[in-house]
């Protein structure tokens, strides 16, 4: 595939939607809200193909997936004919689960991970939350541990079907 010089920013976003989070492979990095901005930069123009700059932000400071995500973005864009790719990691504003798309939340639910409830982490703490069991949809669930299989998740258990499940924490 070769890019003509008129590829739009919108098309680049579509390309990025194919890249998934290595730890939650059903979620694209766009659904997760990791991609903050895409710019076609004249300053990055080279002989063939266009230069593109992708701005990403990590979910958690220590997220080990970020380096892999950066590499995957590069690989995917290279395959689409981009030769000059710049990935800029942005710290501020800090990532929040508010940036997760509705489609992303639905996909999480189907995958068996309860999506974040409500907006932003305020003073409201986890155990006051009514988290819905992704298996049987009961709201009779309880927090087992506020750290789950990865930093972004907490571990809950359903009191009705007894199934333990991950909850994607508000952040």
């Amino acid at each position, binding site marked *: 595939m070769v890019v003509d010089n008129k590829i739009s920013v919108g098309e680049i976003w579509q390309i990025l939607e194919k890249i998934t989070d290595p730890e939650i492979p059903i979620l694209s990095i766009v659904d997760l809200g990791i991609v903050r901005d895409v710019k076609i930069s004249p300053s990055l123009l080279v002989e063939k193909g266009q230069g593109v700059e992708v701005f990403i932000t*990590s979910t*958690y*400071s*220590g*997220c*080990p997936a970020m380096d892999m995500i950066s590499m995957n973005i590069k690989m995917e864009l290279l395959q689409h004919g981009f030769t000059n790719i710049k990935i800029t990691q942005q*710290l*501020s*504003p*800090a*990532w929040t689960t508010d940036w997760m798309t509705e489609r992303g939340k639905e996909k999480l639910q189907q995958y068996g991970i309860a999506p974040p409830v409500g907006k932003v*982490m305020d003073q409201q*703490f986890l155990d006051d939350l009514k988290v819905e069991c992704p298996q049987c949809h009961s709201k009779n669930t309880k927090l*087992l*541990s*506020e*750290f*789950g*299989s*990865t*930093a972004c998740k907490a*571990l809950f258990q359903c009191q009705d079907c007894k199934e333990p499940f991950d909850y994607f924490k508000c*952040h």
Partner: protein
Amino acid sequence: MMQDSLIDYTLHLADNSLIMGHRLSEWTGHGPILEQDIAISNIALDLIGQSRNFYQYAAQLKGGVTEDDLAYLRDATEFKNMLLAELPNGDWAKTILKLFFFSTYQYYLYQKLIGSTDTQLSAIAEKSLKEVTYHLRWSSEWVIRLGDGTEESKKRIEKALEELWDYTGEMFLPSEYESECAKNKIGVDLGFLKEDWMNKVIQIFAEATLPSPKGEPVPTLREGQGVRLNGKEGKHTEHLQEILNDMQYLQRTYPGCEW
């Protein structure tokens, strides 16, 4: 001059998180139960991630070095972390109390550092604060559980308090670079932190049915073999060297080695 202070200040923040994170990571695979093993490993990961952000910034300020050089190739005397961070974990109670003191400190520090005139420090603080909020909550709950638990757990956390209290004063004793940065609105004035920190400790100790610590955190520097110890100025306990031996071994033996 100010530039040097900013570099030192950034390294101090980085070293605090790295050394504390490294210590906590020693629990990985050894936690009392699986959920808590995972929790403490996640906290360690958050802290190491924070330190990376600070090291990257420090490397940029210094020029000609990388984040890895700063983490892996500096000697113990160049490290600027607080002594509290480098102390051995001890038992679960001591690890928890250490983390609780440390997280309470970071929580109030980052809240204020968000207001720094240095946009990069402000951005790292904003990101880190979200994580530290969880660390503080988790460690507070454990202090309460241990203090208000069994006779044995209470005995252990009281013993931990005895061992750790003398190290809390250092948090509020500014080094030269901290004072310089605070004066220039880049860093946090530690004088403003102490009251918030103390109130939080008293509140959680009350919930844990533990007696309030006697008096204020004392800024006494411990005497060690004739040398006044002060982590922020690179005068460390022998425990830091033990950590560095372990942590820096690979990079020093195989320079530039990558995963």
